[in-house]
């Protein structure tokens, strides 16, 4: 009990993650398969965080480069938390650079605010959606738009916790490693995110 509390109060090590039951079966064996499976999700997450298409693409690209360059030799079970840790760090770097740029080039900040190129993909054009009723597709599209807009409004740490837990399905421990914080902090950020997304999340509650 006491050991569990102590372990929750400090940032987990990557070696602890490899032994978690969640990482027992993995749908990938090579780095190529891993990146192929994760790239679209990472891109959408980066897009939600940066609101700019080109920046999101750059961030994912940089993350993939670093992942291959530095961590390809690590055990497969550690890849996912490592990847998201790099991604989160790249997003943080992006915010820092953006803040410096905005302070120096004020006219560019105004330009950026006007040219927010964040837009959700049109689900109706996706081949899998043709099997669904049009009304259902439309409702889902609206639901996703609302959710994505809500997620975009969250604080950075809350957004990270929400996306990694709800979308990627990482455990609290894996999320803590990816975010570089304690498991307790993850729980706090995640619950605050859910609280802020209450209106959007209403549609995801059981009746």
């Amino acid at each position, binding site marked *: 009990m006491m050991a569990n509390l102590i372990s929750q109060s400090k940032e987990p090590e990557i070696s602890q993650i490899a032994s978690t039951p969640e990482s027992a079966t993995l749908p990938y064996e090579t780095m190529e398969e891993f990146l192929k499976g994760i*790239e679209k999700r990472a891109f959408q997450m980066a897009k939600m965080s940066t609101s700019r298409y080109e920046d999101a*693409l750059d961030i*994912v690209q940089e993350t993939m480069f670093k*992942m291959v360059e530095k961590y390809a030799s690590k055990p497969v079970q550690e890849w996912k938390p490592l990847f998201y840790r790099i991604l989160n760090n790249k997003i943080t770097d992006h915010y820092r650079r953006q803040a410096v740029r905005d302070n120096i080039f004020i006219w560019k900040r105004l330009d950026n605010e006007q040219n927010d190129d964040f837009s959700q993909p049109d689900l109706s054009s996706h081949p899998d959606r043709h099997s669904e009723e049009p009304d259902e597709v439309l409702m*889902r599209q609206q639901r*996703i738009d609302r959710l994505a807009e809500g997620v975009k409004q969250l604080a950075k740490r809350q957004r990270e916790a929400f996306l990694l837990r*709800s979308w990627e399905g990482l455990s609290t421990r894996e999320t803590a490693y990816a975010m570089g914080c304690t498991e307790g902090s993850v729980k706090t950020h995640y619950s605050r995110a859910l609280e802020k997304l209450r209106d959007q999340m209403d549609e995801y509650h059981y009746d």
Partner: protein
Amino acid sequence: MNTTMTKINQSKLTKDLTSLEDGTSVQDTFRLANARNKALRGQRSRSNTWSWLVLGSSCAALAIIMLTPLSMETSPYVDTTLAINEPELFAAADQDEGLSFYYWLDVYDTYE
């Protein structure tokens, strides 16, 4: 806290978020695949190294170009009188020949 979390229909939420992922446009998918292939081939590190090398050598060349004329123009300590031109060189040679004649004469006089 837990009541809020347990009430969520996680599968519905995950399904919607996955739809968002699946809706990634063809152009974006292509660009991501391209980025992935580049990462796997490690192209960035090489191009990065090359760009640094090119930048470094360019800076070095620029520094040399900028410093060289300055050092030549601003060195007042070069003694121009020491510079030897061709006529002076021949004159010196003639002078040496003249001296050797006098040495010979001296030796000749001594033995005579």
